[in-house]
């Protein structure tokens, strides 16, 4: 039985999409069948990464009950598959669609939760995906909480910014604990000098383990090369030996065992 992994954060810009895309690519490279879904309906971004703007159906349509999930999934195995199959589900980036999604009522959100929960059966059991990765929108809002409730594992991506740390602490305590979710922290954009020696690294992990009272799965250093790539390609696919790819490779292994 596969796993649904949701990547979430308190603040925006922490690197959820970058990590989601690259984790998905790493699992595909390992021969896993992966499905990556863009659940950030306020700021869709996977269409830009996978250069597909003309999807017939979007995840918006699936949640609206217009179609089933198989109609939404775009097969990108030919362009991005290495050993496993790679599917993506995109959020509609049109302004009108974003506006429409932000005006949904509580009843719609309740039905959307039901449809997200049923993905466990359709994507993992029926379509035999090994990993389904949810890239969510930041903060406490319906779409992201629905995604968290529907996931098996939640990765909270956070930086070392004070407001992000405090917000993440509150969010994990007041939200994640209530839903009894298996949660791990991924510290992103960590300054390289903080992780320069083994001793410093251990100190860093120990400190943030006690701050968040959750396991720190990985500390991903900040790399200029990643910024330079500017999201024009999937970094771990192109730069297979880069330390960023190696770090995410370790993270992928930890999630498998988590």
């Amino acid at each position, binding site marked *: 039985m596969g796993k649904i992994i949701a990547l979430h954060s308190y603040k925006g810009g922490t690197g959820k999409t970058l990590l989601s895309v690259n984790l998905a690519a790493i699992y595909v490279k390992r021969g896993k069948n992966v499905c990556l879904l863009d659940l950030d309906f306020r700021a869709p971004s996977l269409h830009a990464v996978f250069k597909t703007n003309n999807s017939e159906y979007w995840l918006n349509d699936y949640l609206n009950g217009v179609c089933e999930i198989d109609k939404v999934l775009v097969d990108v195995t030919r362009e991005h598959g290495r050993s496993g199959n790679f599917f993506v589900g995109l959020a509609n980036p049109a302004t009108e669609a974003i506006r429409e999604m932000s005006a949904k009522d509580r*009843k719609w959100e309740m*039905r959307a939760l*039901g449809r997200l929960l049923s993905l*466990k059966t359709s994507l993992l059991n029926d379509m035999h995906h090994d990993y389904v990765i949810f890239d969510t929108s930041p903060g406490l809002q*319906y779409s992201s*909480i629905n995604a968290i409730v529907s996931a098996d594992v939640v990765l909270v991506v956070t930086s070392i910014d004070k407001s992000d740390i405090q917000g993440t602490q509150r969010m994990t305590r007041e*939200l994640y604990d*209530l*839903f009894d979710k298996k949660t791990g922290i991924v510290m992103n954009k960590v300054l390289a000098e903080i992780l320069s020696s083994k001793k410093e690294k251990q100190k860093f992990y120990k400190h943030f383990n006690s701050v968040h009272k959750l396991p720190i799965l990985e500390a991903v250093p900040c790399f200029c090369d990643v910024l330079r790539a500017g999201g024009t390609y999937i970094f771990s696919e192109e730069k297979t030996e880069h330390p960023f790819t190696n770090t995410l490779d370790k993270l992928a292994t930890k999630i498998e065992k988590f």
Partner: protein
Amino acid sequence: MAIYKKLEGKPTRILEKIKESLDRLNEKIDAMIEIQKHGQRVNPEISDVLDVMTLLSLPDHLRKTAITLCKIGEATADEVAEQTKRARAVESGYLNQLVIMGYLKKERRGRKAYFYVEKET
């Protein structure tokens, strides 16, 4: 005597009938407890929405039952109890509380009671 004659030779059926009646009685007691707690009868016709924000506001024991039912879709108290690893009678009580609060719907089919979150029309 007439009833006894009618059911003669069918002791299992009698026991089933008694169990069924006890189950219904249990549900009624749960409903009465809930009415006493709230001081008024909650109108089962008026349904509230069981969205994630509502789930967050529920007490822990009811949230577990509600999320489990959301995951299964439609289930009997037995099926929910199997997932939550709590006793059937406990889950039956919680499910009926959620019905009284207007978050779930209940439908009797034969001898079984099915609970579900509002169905899509």
